[in-house]
Structures are given as C-alpha cells and as structure tokens.
C-alpha cells in the first residue's frame, strides 16, 4: 500500500466525523422524515392517557451504555411527559450500568428543578431476576426516604403502583420485567422504551397485550417526541434531538463501504462460476 493511500485511509474517520458535523448543521427538511408510522407512539401515549390522575409509576431504568444514545431523547421526553401528567416516579435499576445512567438522568432532572417530592430513587438492587421477585414482595426503600411517595410504597408495596415503565437495553430489559413482575402484581399496564435491537423479542409482548405500549425504534421515538406537549417542562427535553440528515449520512456511508465489498465479492463469485462453466 502506498504512503498516500495509507494516509487517506487514516484520515477517512476524521472526514466522516466532519461530514456528520456538517450534516448536523443543515436545517431539517420534509424530504427526510425520522418519524414514521405514528401507531406505536399513539399506543404509548394512549396507555399514558388511560392512567389515573397523579399516577404512581415504577420506572425500571436499565438501558445499556452502548445503545442509550439511540433512546436517550425519547427517554427524556417520556420522563418529562410523565412529570407533566403529574405522575410520581419510583426509579429502580437492576444493573450497575442502568444505575449509572439513572443517576445521570436523575441529576439532570434535579438541575432542571424537577419537583423532588415526585421522584423516589430506590437505587440499584442486585440479584437480577430475583431482585424483581423481591421488588414484588417487599421493595427495599432507603431508610432516609420520606414523604408521601415513600410512605405509600411502604404501606401498599408494589401493589400501589399504577403503571410500570421499563427503559431497556441489556439482558434485564422489558422482557424480564414482563416475565418476572407482571404475573406477581396483576393488571398494571407495562410500557417500554428500548433500542431497536430488542424489538424482535419485545414485539410479541405488544401483540399479546403484556406491553401496553412500546417505543422500540428511532422512528417510533421520533414520532412520540413530535406528539408530546410538555408545557413548562419542555426544557427537560433535549433541545437538539438528533436530526435525520446525519443519521442518513452515517447509514449511507455504511451502505457504501459494505456495498463496495459486497459487490467485489459477488463479482469474484460470478467470475469464478463463469470460468467453471466454460471449462
């Protein structure tokens, strides 16, 4: 490989980042539409509409760091949407990774002066599936926690919860919550926000009614974000959610690189088959 070609190959990632940055700055256009079919977003919002006034919502916060960027704007919108609906949130994580991200989001909510009496942080509970079973029996509430929300959870346990929202991403995602917690707490609606990689395993739960709502693709998330009305809580949501153009640019670059290798390989295979046919 020549020095010039090696230098070009080394510089390609930098060029790619510059292309993404430039694409980010281009104003949005109707030709590119990240928000697709609103059915999933409408179903999610309808499930929230069906909740009682000032509902108590248990938030299972267990995304993973690798895919959190994909769902983060939607998660922040959902948290703001719940607070805008006067919901009281009980946040719990079953993985250290989920706990770290929950801590970051709770700190962010505190910076935006979200009402602390409406949020109860149960922290990290070890034990994976067993933790969910224990949560259904008797949730461990921090001894320092006080207020109506903590007292209500101490008195009624998890039975006093009006809905469960699971932020998924790793092995202990919405599927585990549905399997382990739903049979133990009765007919409480379960909703989920998850990256697209979990969609194949979660879609059957939507069809079966175990999940009352699922935002499982970037398109669903964008449609939901476009449909929410947050009022005074709008600043909690990311002001610069990812536009469609840099996403399209990244996907086109991936298609070009893979497509070039694919065509080269296909050409070689066809050529080999042709030679063998002639011989």
């Amino acid at each position, binding site marked *: 490989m020549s020095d010039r070609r090696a230098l070009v190959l080394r510089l390609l990632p930098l060029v790619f980042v510059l292309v993404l940055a430039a694409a980010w700055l281009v104003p949005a256009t109707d030709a590119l539409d990240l928000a697709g079919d609103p059915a999933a977003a409408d179903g999610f919002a309808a499930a929230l509409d069906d909740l009682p006034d000032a509902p108590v919502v248990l938030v299972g916060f267990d995304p993973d*760091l*690798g895919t959190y960027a994909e769902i983060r704007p939607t998660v922040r919108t959902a948290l703001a949407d719940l607070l805008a609906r006067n919901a009281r949130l009980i946040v719990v994580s079953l993985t250290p990774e989920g706990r770290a991200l929950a*801590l970051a989001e709770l700190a962010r909510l505190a910076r935006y002066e979200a009402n602390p009496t409406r949020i109860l942080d149960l922290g990290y509970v070890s034990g994976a599936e067993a933790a969910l079973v224990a949560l259904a029996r008797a949730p461990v509430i921090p001894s320092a926690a006080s207020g109506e929300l903590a007292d209500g959870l101490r008195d009624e346990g998890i039975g006093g919860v009006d809905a469960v929202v699971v932020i998924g991403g790793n092995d202990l995602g919405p599927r585990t919550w549905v399997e382990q917690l739903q049979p133990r707490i009765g007919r409480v609606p379960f909703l989920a926000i998850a990256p697209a990689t979990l969609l194949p395993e979660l879609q059957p739960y939507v069809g079966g009614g175990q999940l009352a709502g699922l935002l499982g693709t970037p398109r669903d998330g964008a449609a939901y974000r476009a449909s929410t009305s947050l009022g005074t809580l709008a600043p909690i949501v990311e002001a610069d959610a990812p536009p469609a153009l840099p996403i399209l640019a990244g996907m086109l670059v991936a298609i070009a690189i893979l497509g070039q290798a694919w065509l080269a390989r296909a050409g070689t295979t066809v050529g080999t088959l042709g030679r063998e046919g002639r011989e």
Partner: protein
Amino acid sequence: MNRPILPLLVVTVGVLLLVDLVVVNPTISDIAAVAVEAVILVGAGAAIAVTASLAWRRAVDLWSRRGDPIGAALVLVGIGAMLVAGLRPGATGASDPWVAWLVGALLVPIAATLFGLLFVTTVVAARRSVASRRRDAFVLMSAALVMLVLLLPIGGQTGGALATAAGWVLAGPVAAVFRGILLGVAILAAVAAARTLLGVGAGDE
C-alpha cells in the same frame, strides 16, 4: 447416578419459586422469600468479588510492571475515586452528589465516546468479513445491507414503502426465527432441568 449439587440447587429453588407463584400459601411464600433474599445477597457478593478481583489483578499488574501499567493505574484511580466519593464521612452512598458528578460528567460521556467509535470498527470488521470469502459472512452482510436500506430515514411514499417493508421483515422472517430460537432454548432448558431432577447424567446414556 450423577447428582451435581449446584444444578439440583438451582432447579429446587426454581421449582420453589414457581410453586410460590401459582399456590397461595404463607409458609411456601416465607421459604421462597428466604431463597430470593439469599440469591440477592449472593448476587451482591459476587459483584463485589468480581470488582475486588479486578482491582487486585490491576494492582499486581502495576506492581510488577507487566501488561498495561497506565491502564491499570487508571482503573485503580477510577475505583478509588468512586469509593472515596461514595464512602467518605458524610457521604450518602451511591446517590451522593460527588458520585453523581463522577458518573454524569466522566463515566457516561467517556463510555458514550467509546461506543461511538464502534461505528468505525464495526463497519471495518464487517467489510473484512465480507472480503474473507466465508459464505456465512457474505449472507450476514447481505442481510445487514438490506436492513440498512430498509431503515433509511426517508420521507414521502418511498420512506413509507421502506418502513412497511422493514415492518414485514421484522414481523415475518425475523420474528419467526427469533421465536424458534426462544422456543428451542426453552425446551432445552426444560429437558436439562428434568434430567437434573431425575439424576440423569452423561454416563447414563
């Protein structure tokens, strides 16, 4: 007859939890609660042991100047900073503002950056796998290319058609294969559990 203790214990606890789920009985519920608490404590202990093992191995690497001493030092500094932030006198543990700052300002952005680099490394690895002339890699990358095209964020009729096609692929072939795998794994787990309960081992076949 081979009766491994660990699988037997796992299956016993599993059956206990299952019975507790379907039968309302205070005694069974109390026994199941003890089992669940034990599992949680074992899980917490294992997590601490893994972290301590990592710290010990990195300390040994640093002391004996082998491997990656800079990386080992950074791991130890990170663990130490988090422990000091959460356990110093007056701290409130994992919810302490110092811990929140370390997580929000350092841990999450650094991890997000590392995962952001995955785009480049994944595309390069995929390209190499296609060039490797392996048939399974070729099929895998062909499917990936099709899905990339179907998921392009394009508006209008073209975008709608692509989204419809992507939905069909998910609801049809992908769902069928995925459910098949799940069913296969569930049947395999049930057979393994039954063999354990009956004490059937490889030597009995």
